[in-house]
């Protein structure tokens, strides 16, 4: 999946400047930057929800999105929320619900699930769509740290072995360093890519120590100078 935005305006205000990035199959890229910089805007452009921009999105394939809030249909059961949006089969729905730890909750309405469970259902829905490109907009926000950590591990586990190009928006640098193969930081006004930091530690070996090291690389004044190749 590649995206090239030459510029994006809302009314008169230019929000995004020239941004070009690509995410390969099986790759996880984290997108960070201060609040209001245009991360959600970029995601909506990639998702095809906002076509009012100059530039192009190439080869996204089938797109699935995990929104900042779970965005489930509260009047449909958990299983129906997967089936009606993605057309997934009964068997794969049951398998996915198991995978995200919602076994036995197929008939529950979203209102009967906790926020963390709703988030997992939204993740399961995105996976049920069998996407080539997965977009996640701060998927773990407003969860307590323990739940968020559990969700991160779960996300890593389910993405493992699937050839999905994943772009995950996050404010949380630890989260970025734990999940991603590459961290793209947006900055400036209008926003452009400021830094790209590759995380070289294999995902399986990312423990607290390497996370801390990665984090140092990501924070200003650290070793983060990898204005690397955009692809």
């Amino acid at each position: 999946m590649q995206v090239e935005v030459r510029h994006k305006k809302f009314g008169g205000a230019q929000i995004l400047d020239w941004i070009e990035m690509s995410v390969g199959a099986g790759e996880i890229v984290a997108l960070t930057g201060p609040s209001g910089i245009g991360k959600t805007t970029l995601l909506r452009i990639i998702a095809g929800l906002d076509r009012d921009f100059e530039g192009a999105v190439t080869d996204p394939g089938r797109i699935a999105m995990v929104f900042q809030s779970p965005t489930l249909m509260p009047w449909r059961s958990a299983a129906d929320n997967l089936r009606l949006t993605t057309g997934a089969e009964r068997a794969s729905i049951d398998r996915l619900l198991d995978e995200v730890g919602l076994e036995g909750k197929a008939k529950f309405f979203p209102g009967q699930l906790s926020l963390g469970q709703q988030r997992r259902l939204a993740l399961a829905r995105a996976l049920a769509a069998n996407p080539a490109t997965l977009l996640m907009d701060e998927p773990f926000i407003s969860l307590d740290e323990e739940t968020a950590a559990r969700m991160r591990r779960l996300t890593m586990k389910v993405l493992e072995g699937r050839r999905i190009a994943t772009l995950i928006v996050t404010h949380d640098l630890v989260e970025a360093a734990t999940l991603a193969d590459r961290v793209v930081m947006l900055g400036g006004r209008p926003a452009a890519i400021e830094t790209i930091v590759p995380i070289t530690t294999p995902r399986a070996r990312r423990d607290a120590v390497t996370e801390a090291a990665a984090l140092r690389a990501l924070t200003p004044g650290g070793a983060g100078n990898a204005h690397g190749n955009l692809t």
Partner: protein
Amino acid sequence: MSKPNNQGGASGFSRISPAALLFPFLFIGVWYVAAGLAGNETTFPSPVTVGKIILAEARSGALFIHVGATLARVAAAFVIAMAVGCAIGLWMGRNRGINRWGDPWLVFFLNMPALVTIVLCYIWIGLTEAAAITAVAINKIPMVAVMMREGARTLDPGLNDMARVFRMTPAARLAHVVIPQLAPHFASAGRAGIALIWKIVLVVELLGASTGVGFQIHTYFQLFDVGAVLAYALSFIIVMLVVEYLILQPWERHASRWRNAG
């Protein structure tokens, strides 16, 4: 947070509240006492007298013919008003330009007295069934449109984005995203509508029909037969109560069960 009255038995009857079940008895009791105090069977007949008239009219078949005719008109006008009103309301709610142009028209028709619409329909279309039903529908359409427009404005943009990203088909979107959000607005438009419609139908029948509860009330009014007037009015109210408690409310409960689950 579930309400205790949602955990009753499975049958429709067991979910009707005791207050609703007791209501007919209380009503007849109050009426009986009031009629006794008034002491004039001609102008204020007792429930016993009216009950006898209802039975007699039912035995002769007249009751069913007239209540049936009114019910058919109510149903036809209701279906037309809901369909057209929903279409207009949703269109205006989703499209700002249409809303800007359509709004004054809506206010105009909203304030048009029912009587004027009825008289004009009879004059322009003729004293026909079509004119009667059109007149009633025109009275009701603006109100349905206003209520559905509110519904369309409150559609969740997040769910709309979700449906677009996941490429839900238009039919699936309508059935699983749009209609469930509009259902409460639809139910209250329908609820308010049916009460209004049957009252307008009576006026329409009074002015230009030869069947129906309105026609019978008109006839018996000229004969100064208060008992028969009450008999017909009451019979129709009973029909509408049955519709409300045995059809509308169970349907609404079914449609909103996701709210109370848990």
